[in-house]
């Protein structure tokens, strides 16, 4: 079974296998990021712009801003959770307040059809 990921309600949600799993308005701590000049970015998620799967990771680019310096924009790809076994499909979310490392994408967000 493939993992189905999409954003919903104007980017308010990431839905994984048709369950609303990740919502906007959390604070995410980003490290080694070029999002802003802060050592770590205290990032408020305002909307999910793109979502994808890089098995087993569920990833997203998120629009929002650093609440320390005010820089706003869209992050590189962030892992928001994992679906370890696609056949079972269970989603394990990451903890937003722990430290995350946004990355440029090297693989396709969706598998080629």
């Amino acid at each position, binding site marked *: 079974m493939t993992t189905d990921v999409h954003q919903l309600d104007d980017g*308010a949600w990431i839905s994984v296998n048709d369950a609303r799993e990740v919502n906007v308005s959390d604070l995410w701590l980003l490290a080694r990021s070029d999002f802003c000049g802060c050592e770590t970015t205290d990032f408020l998620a305002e909307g999910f712009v793109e979502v994808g799967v890089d098995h087993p990771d569920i990833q997203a680019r998120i629009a929002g801003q650093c*609440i320390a310096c*005010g820089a706003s924009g869209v992050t590189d790809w962030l892992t928001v959770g994992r679906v370890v076994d696609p056949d079972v499909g269970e989603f394990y979310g990451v903890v937003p307040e722990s430290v995350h490392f946004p990355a440029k994408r090297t693989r396709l967000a969706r598998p080629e059809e």
Partner: protein
Amino acid sequence: MPSKVENWKDEVYGNEIRDHLMEFAEQGWEAIPDDEQDAWFERFKWWGLYHQRSGQESYFMMRIGTPNGVIEPGQLEVIGEVAKEYAQGPAENPEFGDAYCDWTTRQSIQLHWIKLEDIPEIFERLESVGLSTQQACGDSWRNIVGCPVAGKDKHEHVDAWPVAQELNETFKGNDDYANLPRKWKVAITGCDEGCGQGDINDLAFEPAEKGGELGFNVRVGGGLSRKEPRLARSLDVWVPPEQAADVAHGMSALFREYGDREDRFNARIKFLVDEWGTEKMRSVLQEEFVDFELPTAGEDMRDQYTYNTGTQAGHNDHVGVTEQPDGNYYVGLNVLVGRMGADDTLELAELADEYGSGEVRLTQRQNVIVTDIAEEDLDEFLAEPLLEDYSPDPSPFMRGSIACTGTEFCSLSIVETKNRQVRYARWLRDNVDLPADHDEFHIHLSGCTASCAQPQIADVSLRGMKTRKDGEPVEALDIGLGGGLGDDPRFADWVAMRVPADEVPGAIKNLVENFKELREERAVPEGQRGRDGEAVERETFRDFVEARDEETLADLVEPEETDYEDPYMHNTKMTWYPYAEDDDMGASPAPTDGQGQPLASDD
């Protein structure tokens, strides 16, 4: 590649959703397969139903579209009854009780805590008096907005109410326009005060004269959402009232054919206007979507606009007592943040019946208007106890307050809004004095960038944010200044960012004090003096902001704690309901069955 939502819409959309909705309602919440919930929730929007946020599963917001905000005699009573009977959730709101109606910024009505199982009965009740939820949300023609006193105002040049009715009848339930790339918001106004707020709509008809005939100029591509606000742009088209529907057909067909169905963030027509420019849009409309020669724009009346302009003259809003052309009066009542308890709604329906024609109208400033009151009944109506809470002459801070739904129910919002704005307005009323020449001061609080409270067009714009206070994350607001509509519309300048929510009232107080101290005077040349003959004119708040740069304005906003207390500083989005005694997400009773009893978890 078409978006996921487009694929769902291809399978089932428009009128046919209703049969499925009724079937699910008959069988109960659990009949919606888990792996189809996203698709069905997206489709249910077309019938005015929006699934509430996390922690409130199985409950829906229901929107009822009332074209031009007109609630006809007999309808308000049913709205109040439906709210009282069906819009009650598992917990009470401390400001508004257990059942209430929201009057929205697009002249519609929203009810919350609606259970799927109750929808057939609710539809039957609403439809028995001609009300409908059809297309109140979703990707199609939304509720048509306009001057709320169309047909009853002395400033009117064209009665736009019959045209709004024609558009509503033509485009509601019309399969040709049922599935558009995105929402389609239309405003039509015939008065010279600009209260249709056409500038922030996808398609706007505004009064204009051409060759001695009154009709409408057409504008396209306005909207406020997503930090991408646009004012509608002139299409250089004039249309007589009897052809407004033809141009509306053409424009919505153009949007249907050329709008972006691959990227929903780029789908609104404002982005197509950005891409094409108005000249190309006009020529495509002419060549492909209308079969008559489009006249060029006529002479508009925008220089007379007063609505939400900060001019402190003319309408600005519809609160207060105004004489109609037929000698009767309409009375605009202030509804703080647009929320009215169900019992109050029922009482208002009775009063409208007793003193007026039974008709009530909704404004884009979340207020209500009782129309058709005879002069001899006016004093008695104004003495009714209900008007102590919904005043026709309220404090400027009460009448100027607008707030969206916020984290109470909405998935997108970042902060609590309605109850907070109620507390702000009361504190400002009790602690801040505006200059005597300012009886209008608009504060719009929106929980996120979707801008449902229209924050960019207020004197003081508030937008949901977060910050840290003593290291802890707290709800905060960005503060913008000086937005408004009129002949020279402008969006607010965002001058103070991430202000902790409990410091915002202090910031507004300091700003007002600084404004009073620093506003400038100018001598008015004799020929330019108004009817009052004043020889000296002082800056209005809006002019004051416009005349200063952002840095200067930022210095005038001095956030500080005061004796204002904010009970919603914590992350209200992480609660199942911000005002519940035990608000922890784990304490949520949702999802529930048709009787409101918790359903067993799948886990």
